[in-house]
């Protein structure tokens, strides 16, 4: 399987319920996901628990992000000015296609013409637009340098988690990939063995390749600086060794002030990896003589973010800082893993982000891929009310589908029943009659038809009571003292 035919693209992916069925059959996958999310969740809970002002921090984070989005036009231009002044070059991309074209052209300009190559820092934004495929088509080799992204790339796989993209693989599976792809038949499966193999494989690329592509955790408008946080130091290599650095960032990554990092760099690592501080925090501003890349480009990409911004209720989605705490906390994600979401953005944030980035042309089942349990909202470091946005998007899906389908008709009928006491009583009586053929001797229903059949896959349903509460109440009369 090549990376091109297994790509996670909402336009071509199966619906969530269908893809979830496949994931649920993979017991190894479910074991891996459950274990990994549990480990990260527990770490997060420990380091969040030690913060007496966590709730205030969340509120600050929310307000900073809301402010940034409310004045996005101003701050983006401010960023462009300051980045340009510091020696960077800012490019604007309306969508993914344009961003890919710009990056490809820049690489061709700067990389060696005989053997164009780039080293990459882990970036969800470049995953979103499938940049590697475009580079490959242009004859450019891209090497992922984040350990997890390297596993994904060598395994011809797709990321299943925003922070830990290879979370669905365990050590033995990673060893097999490395053995095969790095030609290391004797490789062990201890973390040191795997890290050592990756280090040898990557060091040589760091020293050879002169162009790097990165994403961004934050763009700082006030200084024109770009911030990346990471755990391995491989990102730092990409930011310092090559001659040319190309950063691709969604326009939503803006922070107004340098000072805002004080809040964000407390919220992000604790929420993402359960660490008090990331091992490597890089902030770079433009170019500096004799220090780091000599050519620095930033591609600011919209790719439907302005349409999300235009939606009053969906807007808060853009506040996301990609910590993935919601993925780890989500009982749905925990069962299915990330690939079932048909997008590089999986889990609760993916369920609201993907359909909006697709302007609801695709991924219409994602807003329903949640029991609305609220665990995501509870852990979100910038207080995105994901359940609220899910409901908002469900309403949009319902409107788009129109009134002439079985579900809409049933909902309309039930809605009419709820509007009238007389109809409600009649429906209770009718329901009792209608269920009779389905009720077994023990007073339970073991099979339901049509849309309701999902219930009786693994559950029974008790028959309706012979006497409703209403009947009982009326017979008894109002009592009390």
């Amino acid at each position, binding site marked *: 399987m090549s990376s091109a035919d297994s790509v996670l693209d909402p336009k071509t992916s199966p619906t969530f319920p269908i893809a979830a069925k496949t994931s649920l059959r993979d017991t190894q996958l479910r074991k891996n996901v459950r274990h990994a999310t549990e480990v990260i969740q527990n770490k997060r809970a420990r380091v969040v628990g030690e913060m007496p002002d966590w709730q205030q921090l969340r509120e600050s984070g929310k307000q900073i992000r809301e402010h940034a989005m409310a004045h996005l036009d101003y701050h983006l231009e401010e960023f462009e000015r300051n980045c340009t002044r510091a020696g960077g070059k800012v490019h604007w991309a309306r969508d993914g296609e344009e961003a890919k074209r710009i990056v490809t052209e820049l690489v061709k300009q700067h990389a060696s013409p005989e053997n164009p190559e780039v080293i990459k820092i882990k970036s969800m934004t470049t995953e979103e637009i499938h940049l590697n495929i475009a580079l490959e088509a242009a004859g450019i080799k891209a090497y992922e340098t984040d350990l997890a992204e390297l596993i994904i790339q060598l395994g011809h796989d797709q990321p299943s988690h925003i922070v830990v993209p290879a979370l669905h693989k365990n050590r033995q599976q990673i060893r097999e990939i490395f053995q095969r792809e790095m030609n290391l038949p004797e490789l062990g499966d201890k973390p040191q063995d795997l890290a050592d193999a990756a280090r040898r494989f990557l060091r040589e690329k760091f020293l050879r390749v002169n162009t790097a592509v990165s994403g961004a955790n934050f763009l700082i408008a006030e200084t024109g600086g770009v911030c990346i946080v990471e755990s391995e130091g491989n990102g730092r290599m990409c930011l310092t060794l090559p001659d040319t650095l190309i950063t691709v960032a969604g326009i939503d990554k803006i922070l107004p002030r340098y000072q805002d990092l004080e809040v964000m760099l407390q919220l992000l690592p604790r929420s993402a990896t359960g660490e008090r501080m990331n091992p490597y925090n890089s902030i770079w501003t433009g170019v500096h003589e004799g220090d780091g890349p000599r050519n620095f480009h930033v591609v600011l990409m919209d790719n439907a973010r302005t349409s999300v911004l235009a939606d009053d209720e969906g807007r808060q989605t853009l506040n996301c800082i990609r910590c993935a705490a919601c993925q780890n906390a989500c009982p749905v994600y925990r069962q299915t893993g990330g690939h079932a979401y048909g997008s590089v953005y999986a889990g609760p944030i993916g369920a609201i982000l993907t359909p909006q980035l697709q302007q609801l042309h695709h991924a219409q089942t994602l807003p329903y891929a949640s*029991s609305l349990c609220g665990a995501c909202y509870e852990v979100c470091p910038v207080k995105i009310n994901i359940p609220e946005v899910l409901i908002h998007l469900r309403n949009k899906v319902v409107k788009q589908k129109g009134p002439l389908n079985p579900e809409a008709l049933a909902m309309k009928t039930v809605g009419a029943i*709820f509007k*009238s006491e007389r109809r409600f009583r009649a429906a209770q009586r009718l329901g009792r009659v209608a269920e009779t053929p389905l009720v077994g001797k023990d007073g339970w229903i*073991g099979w339901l038809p049509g849309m309701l059949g999902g219930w009786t896959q*693994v559950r029974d349903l008790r028959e309706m009571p012979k006497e409703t509460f209403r009947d009982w109440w009326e017979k008894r009369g109002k009592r009390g003292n």
Partner: protein
Amino acid sequence: MKVLERLGHTVDFPAGQTCCGQMHWNTGYQAEALPLVGRFVEQFRHAEAVVVPSSSCVAMMRDHYPKMAEELGDRKLMAEVAELLPRVYEFSEFLTRGLGLTDVGAYYPHRVTYHASCHGLRNLGLGDGPMSLLRAVKGIDLVQIENMEQCCGFGGTFAVKNADVSSAMLAEKTTAVLNTGAEACTACDNSCLMHIQGALHRQRTGVRTVHLAEILAGAEGDAL
């Protein structure tokens, strides 16, 4: 009803009440849910306190009714909703926060475990309230369930639209219930209980589900 009357309250059941509209609202059928806000206010506006034996219905009202009234553009309704909502309580919340009680004089001689329904836990912030009521019940053998705060997988139409994922979530929950060795699983939300009970019955486990109110209604001498 029994608990409230035992505590000396006068209980009324306005016959015109139907549904809070949660199913419609959460599934995306906003137009169908909107008229139910006015209906609720009309039915309950005269009550001193409105006690609801389902945490998710209360969450629906608290989280969405003010916005829904606003969406209807009905200023009078907005004011009425704002006036009525502080008097709307989830059942356990009414006892613990409204009345300041934990011991309601109940007797229930069984091994019981408690599942914290999502909306009660996160939207209403019930916290330890329901457990404190249970701990005060005479004769009860209360056992802690593993991952008490994890969703049972019901989620309204989610259980049907994503039946496979819902079933997988439910399987984790029923395993946790069975691991406690409890005779009954209780919660503050009938929908979770119906969901959990559906699987416990299908698996012929003999473990039943009971609403918190049923336990608190128990008294010595009753056939329990």
